[in-house]
């Protein structure tokens, strides 16, 4: 959903909910009415208030307002709207007179209220959002020198980028499978073992990145269980023409080149960029063959445009990315020798996203979205000596979606969103072969969602939403959420939400039909299980079937119930503190379990809903502007992410550890390191010093130790050597820019991982200190 397409409605939602007619007026003799405008355009939702009173109203979608005056004589109106300078106008009304007073507003130079779209699928001021939301804007991204999405997310309080088949983002203690990544509101597809590699996505061309923590499945459906990350782009303003190029070079042969251009006109706007990102990779274990991180080249091309046809807007977003990488590894052969192999990978993914937004009368807007995306990978392992192909895997995923959303603004107090859509998903590849009927794995889904926002008074706002998903291959489900925002006084906000999240079974859990020819076991996804077991049975391969797969119900999506609470207080104009807590109870986590035993003694596995986990935590943030040009922000998070089954076993006293001397000892709950890869404590710090166009930024992030493996056989991290020692990493970036006759020159230099912290092979994405320099030119 495009933010631009909503700019009228947006303002109503933002302020209108708050500025209310607090006292219904009795028949009043004198009235003031008119239109609130800026540059000839009506400002919907502008607040019009009798100065120094609570009496007021808000402008309708066409900018008109009407306000009864309690007494005759002179009056003053205070008019405000998000993004505009607050103005005061004066008039005089005789008894019974209807005074016509049109108001012109000036766009604010500094937009104080940051607008976000992800939390409610509609534009809303950040401070009006009742769920934990973080925004990183383009300026922050620039000051940081971030190239990829992972560079941005690793500095967001409470988030971690964790290596597991690519850099995945952990939100509220969940593995990255549980966070939905959006590009302009539409899902980015393509996961490897559940991880959507956040370094796949360049942040070039991004206006801001919104991170919503806690479940948003009631609006977005599957995967939005832990959170949603949305890369939002923006169209250039009318009358602007910009172009620029930027080149960065750094350690390990890292290069990043961006060339971009944008044009804005009254009736249309367009922007495009091309990005080439590459690295020679690096090797943290020179004693073994093959790099730790392979060399790669990644190209991204992106084009977005928008046309205004009367009141409606037509937009198109397209993106294509291609990555080639080359690595290597040594494999132990049957005779015990280590033989080097070269592995090559190619990824091609693209997306097309047309959208049409049209107002339907004063109160409604219809947005129709089509979205198509494809993600293909090719993997090859070849023996270095003779090129002999050891392994080859192709994967091809296609995703299509059609969706319509109606935004209804009933009044300043009530706003509703209704949406419905269908998706179609198709898979092909070596592991996803056609079934017995010859059909390649494919899935269809229909969904509908609704959200109602109600602001009974200035101090309260309530939002309820729910979504229904019916999918061809797993059980249908209804996902609700309720959130409340309270503002007992200025500068103090309290929020609470309770909601459900879910994650659809992964492709392998639905569609895999795989028999390991050498080891002899078989694994079937839930849609293939019945057919697979029947086929093995018919071939006489089964010794024992533990139960009839036909009697199983549909596999369920993994689902959660989550609570989020928080408070934000502006203690002084230069000091803001926030604190929050979250609790997610997750059930029906899917695991492979044996279904039958084969005559060769091996098992046949199916996927079932078994496990339960919980994640809960507390976080706190402080941001300060203690002096001009100096900004300091810090955060701390406490996290517990645990498996219920293990917690129960520990409570029963039936779990032991084995220390390095071989002694077995009984474990208590306090010995439990939680789910692997989760640090119980984490903190971030960001200090920015700005002088004019120059800035220096120091960023730090610390995480306490986290479990990475089990060595003593109890399946959990409890012994010191099963943990990655905690670490703190600091990055420094210096930026300056100058206007010259040729255009604006931006120079940047930075050191990442200032103190050269490494965790050897345990954290392959942390190669130690790296440096970079960037030069950019823009017109």
């Amino acid at each position, binding site marked *: 959903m495009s933010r631009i397409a909503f700019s009228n409605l947006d303002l109503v939602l933002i302020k209108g909910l708050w500025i209310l007619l607090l006292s219904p007026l009795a028949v009043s003799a004198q009235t003031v009415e008119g239109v609130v405008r800026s540059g000839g355009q009506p400002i919907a939702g502008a607040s019009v208030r009798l100065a120094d009173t609570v009496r007021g109203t808000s402008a309708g979608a066409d900018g008109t307002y009407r306000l009864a005056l309690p007494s005759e004589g002179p009056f003053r109106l205070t008019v405000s709207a998000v993004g505009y300078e607050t103005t005061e106008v004066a008039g005089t009304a005789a008894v019974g007179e209807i005074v016509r007073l049109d108001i012109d507003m000036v766009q604010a130079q500094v937009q104080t209220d940051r607008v976000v779209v992800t939390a409610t699928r509609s534009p809303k001021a950040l401070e009006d959002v009742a769920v934990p939301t973080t925004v990183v804007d383009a300026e922050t991204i620039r000051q940081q020198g971030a190239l990829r999405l992972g560079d941005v997310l690793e500095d967001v309080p409470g988030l971690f980028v964790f290596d597991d088949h690519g850099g995945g983002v952990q939100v509220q203690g969940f593995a990255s499978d549980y966070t939905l990544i959006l590009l302009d509101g539409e899902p980015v597809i393509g996961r490897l073992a559940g991880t959507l590699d956040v370094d796949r996505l360049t942040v070039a061309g991004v206006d801001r990145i919104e991170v919503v923590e806690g479940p948003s499945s009631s609006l977005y459906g599957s995967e939005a269980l832990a959170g949603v990350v949305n890369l939002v782009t923006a169209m250039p303003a009318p009358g602007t023409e910009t172009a620029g190029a930027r080149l960065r070079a750094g350690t390990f042969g890292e290069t990043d080149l961006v060339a971009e251009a944008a044009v804005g006109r009254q009736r249309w706007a367009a922007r495009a960029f091309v990005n080439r990102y590459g690295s020679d990779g690096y090797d943290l274990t020179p004693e073994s063959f093959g790099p730790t991180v392979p060399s790669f080249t990644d190209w991204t091309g992106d084009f977005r445009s928008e046309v205004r046809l009367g009141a409606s807007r037509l937009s198109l977003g397209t993106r294509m990315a291609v990555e080639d990488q080359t690595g290597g590894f040594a494999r132990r052969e049957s005779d015990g020798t280590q033989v080097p192999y070269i592995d090559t990978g190619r990824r091609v993914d693209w997306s097309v996203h047309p959208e049409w937004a049209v107002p339907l009368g004063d109160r409604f807007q219809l947005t129709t979205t089509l979205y198509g995306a494809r993600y293909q990978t090719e993997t090859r392992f070849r023996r270095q000596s003779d090129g002999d192909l050891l392994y080859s895997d192709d994967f091809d995923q296609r995703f299509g979606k059609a969706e319509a959303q109606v935004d209804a603004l009933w009044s300043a107090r009530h706003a509703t969103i209704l949406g419905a859509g269908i998706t179609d998903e198709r898979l092909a590849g070596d592991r996803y072969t056609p079934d017995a009927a010859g059909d390649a794995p494919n899935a269809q889904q229909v969904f509908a969602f609704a959200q109602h926002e109600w602001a009974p008074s200035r101090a309260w706002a309530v939002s309820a939403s729910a979504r229904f998903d019916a999918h061809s291959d797993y059980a249908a489900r209804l996902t609700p959420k309720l959130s409340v925002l309270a503002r007992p006084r200025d500068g103090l906000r309290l929020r609470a939400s309770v909601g459900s999240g879910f994650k659809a079974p992964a492709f392998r859990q639905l569609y895999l039909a795989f028999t390991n020819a050498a080891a002899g076991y078989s694994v079937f996804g839930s849609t293939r299980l019945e057919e697979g077991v029947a086929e093995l049975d018919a071939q006489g391969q089964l010794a024992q079937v533990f139960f009839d797969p036909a009697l*199983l119900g549909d596999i369920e999506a993994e689902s959660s119930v989550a609570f989020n609470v928080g408070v934000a207080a502006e203690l002084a104009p230069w000091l803001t503190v926030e604190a929050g807590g979250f609790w997610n109870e997750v059930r029906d986590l899917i695991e492979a379990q044996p279904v039958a035993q084969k005559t060769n003694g091996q098992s046949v596995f199916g996927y079932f*809903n078994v496990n339960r986990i919980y994640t809960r935590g507390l976080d706190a943030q402080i941001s300060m502007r203690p002096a001009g040009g100096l900004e300091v922000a810090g955060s701390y998070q406490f996290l517990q992410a645990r498996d219920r089954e293990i917690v129960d076993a520990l409570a029963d006293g039936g779990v032991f550890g084995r220390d390095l001397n071989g002694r077995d000892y009984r474990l208590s709950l306090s010995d439990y390191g939680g789910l692997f890869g989760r640090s119980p404590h984490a903190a971030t710090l960001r200090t920015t010093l700005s002088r004019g166009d120059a800035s220096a930024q120091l960023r730090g992030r610390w995480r306490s130790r986290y479990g990475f493996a089990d060595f003593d*056989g109890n399946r959990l991290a409890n012994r010191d050597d099963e943990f990655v020692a905690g670490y703190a990493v600091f990055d420094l970036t210096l930026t300056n820019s100058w206007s010259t006759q040729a255009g604006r020159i931006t120079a940047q230099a930075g050191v990442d991982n200032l103190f050269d912290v490494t965790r050897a092979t345990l954290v392959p994405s942390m190669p130690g200190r790296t440096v970079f320099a960037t030069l950019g030119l823009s017109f």
Partner: protein
Amino acid sequence: MNRIALLALAGVLTLSACDSTEVEPVPIPAQTADDIEADPATSFGPQGPVGNGLFTLFDLDTGQVVLSSSETDATARAADSTGTAWDIGFRATTIIFNNGISGPGSVRAQFLPTTPFAELTMAPADGYLADGENTCPAVQTPGGTFPGAPLVVCGGSDNGWYNYNPAANVVTPIPGNTIVFQTSEGDYGKLRVLSYYRGNPATPTENDTARYYTLEYVIQDDGTRDFQTTDN
């Protein structure tokens, strides 16, 4: 000064111990059996090891291998495996005792899942089984359960002495369990598995050679169930 104080204290303690008419019992020293072959791979398929499919048979009283899994001669195997010289057998992750469905012997044993080896000071009086008499934990699936093979030490990851980590492709002994047994000679003993990999590496990886047991065990040869002794 501290050292002198400690020495003095130690002296007092020693004297008082000597004065005492009762001798404090101490654990019987444990023995280890290193790198017992348990049908190690003779070849590798693309996905894993392939062995002979045979057991190594071990005598706990003498600490000797009676028959190695590498012995493939049928006559030699038949002669040994039908005897009662061996107490325990190993084939990959499977552990058998010479009794019941596994052999002609009279070894009795039981698996104590939540009793650490060092803390077991007295063998239980009863609860001993022969292979074939056990009821192994059912494999739980949402659609139903099924019984495991009825060995004293149940097979399967997390059912008996080990768990298998598919991510690391490593078999690890589960800490906190002990196997108690009475040999054919009537001696009580206890054992636990320390390692499944050759050389007992501290943190085995899939590159270590699997199917080599390192055992820690204690035999009480006076016929009692007491794993402590006052003999010094």
